[in-house]
């Protein structure tokens, strides 16, 4: 039976034509393509790395692609995040990515995880997938994905970047490979690693590293070649002196070692350190009352106590007292700009930071709070 006929048993002639270059490829063939079509891959982070990884996995015929990202497209993303166009600026990355991927391959089942990847849902989400790709931009999520992938028993294909360099690795506990914690036991402390926003990133680098993640995923799914498990590839695009390092399992590892202390997904383990990698980006922006009033589609969020609302309030604002934000952030839309305010701006700064850490990107802290708003925007408003 020919490779085309094997595929045809399960699928259509159209599929055989579409994947002809895989069918003729030694080590892939119809069996490999069938595995690709049946595979379920979760991509977390649809930025520089996630863009090429998603495009290539989708093109290769991976049957189910799960996508998770909180972000909206920013103008500064376009220099490297090739899933998006100028028309997408301000829109949800998930929606933009889903549209592009579906247009490019209508057979792919695209699943959007709008709820985001959190300690309390990550294991349930990972149970729906065969492997996960880490394209995130912060250490807390990297540790979260590493721990969850190990506990869920699926491989983690990791890539990360700094300026002109990248690290690519496959962490697969079933194949005697170390995990991310074997390599880096503890999350870096504040200030240890500079942030990407200030350090910059070489535009085409994620094209390499994200495509390598896709290659490793396709290798793992089809069984072709030698997977990168237990090894880390260090890419240096300035010199192209790339290096391969071994990452063996560490018997002392808190996650995958012989006496693990990490056996479940405790949320506090993944709280962002004060800085981590994205400190500057994570600082909520302060916004003046005038600028806030001109924000398109902004939602004002009042974090004061109920009695304060009796004194004065901004029409249309939703009310969530500061202490309830961690329990009720899900009520706040990620795709709309949020203007957080309190009386003078201190409590709302805390709330804005909490939302930032939950992945909200368009969060503003109203400078001077409702007190300044009253003075500058509504002189008739009561002050206290």
């Amino acid at each position, binding site marked *: 039976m020919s490779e085309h006929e094997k595929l045809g048993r399960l699928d259509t002639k159209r599929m055989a034509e579409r994947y002809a270059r895989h069918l003729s490829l030694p080590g892939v063939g119809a069996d490999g393509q069938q595995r690709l079509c049946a595979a379920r891959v979760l991509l977390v982070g649809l930025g520089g790395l996630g863009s090429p990884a998603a495009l290539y996995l989708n093109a290769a015929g991976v049957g189910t692609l799960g996508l998770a990202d909180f972000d909206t497209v920013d103008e500064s993303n376009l220099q490297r995040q090739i899933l998006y166009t100028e028309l997408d600026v301000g829109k949800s990355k998930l929606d933009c990515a889903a549209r592009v991927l579906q247009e490019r391959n209508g057979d792919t089942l695209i699943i959007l995880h709008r709820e985001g990847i959190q300690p309390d849902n990550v294991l349930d989400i990972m149970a729906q997938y065969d492997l996960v790709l880490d394209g*995130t*931009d912060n250490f807390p999520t990297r540790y979260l994905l590493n721990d969850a992938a190990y506990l869920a028993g699926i491989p983690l294909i990791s*890539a*990360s970047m700094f300026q002109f360099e990248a690290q690519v690795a496959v962490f697969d506990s079933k194949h005697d490979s170390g995990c991310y914690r074997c390599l*880096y*036991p503890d999350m870096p402390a504040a200030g240890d*690693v500079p942030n990407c926003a200030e*350090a910059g990133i070489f535009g085409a680098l994620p094209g390499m590293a994200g495509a390598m993640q896709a290659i490793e995923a396709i290798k793992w799914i089809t069984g072709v070649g030698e997977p990168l498990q237990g090894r880390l590839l260090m890419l240096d695009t300035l010199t192209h002196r790339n290096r391969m*390092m071994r990452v063996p399992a560490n018997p002392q590892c808190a996650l995958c070692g012989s006496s693990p202390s990490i056996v479940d997904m405790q949320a506090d383990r993944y709280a962002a350190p004060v800085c*981590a990698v994205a400190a500057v980006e994570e600082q909520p922006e302060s916004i003046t009352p005038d600028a806030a009033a001109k924000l398109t589609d902004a939602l004002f969020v009042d974090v004061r106590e109920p009695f304060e609302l009796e004194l004065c309030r901004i029409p249309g604002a939703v009310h969530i007292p500061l202490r309830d934000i961690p329990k009720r952030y899900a009520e706040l839309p990620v795709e709309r700009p949020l203007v957080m305010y309190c009386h003078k701006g201190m409590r709302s700064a805390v709330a804005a930071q909490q939302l930032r850490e939950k992945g909200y990107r368009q969060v503003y802290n109203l400078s001077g709070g409702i007190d300044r708003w009253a003075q500058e925007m509504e002189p008739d408003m009561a002050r206290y």
Partner: protein
Amino acid sequence: MPFIVIPAALRRLMSEPVSTLEVDAATAREALDGLIAKYPELRETFLDSDGNLRQFVRIFIGEEDIESLQGQDTPVTPSDEIVLLPPIAGG
């Protein structure tokens, strides 16, 4: 002499960044001491307040992490490449 490969994430901490540094060293410890002597601004990146090696940056000789060899006592030869591998998180 063996030389140390210094990735960009560590170079930015250096007063005069270089991507490689030759060191006169017979062990990993001597190599690290040589690096810190020349660039004292890197001390806190590698050593805690007691002078012990932090686990923040991994140190490889060739393909092998020194922790899977003899730690800081791992011998280095003149032809060895000592690669520093800091965690990076950009995506």
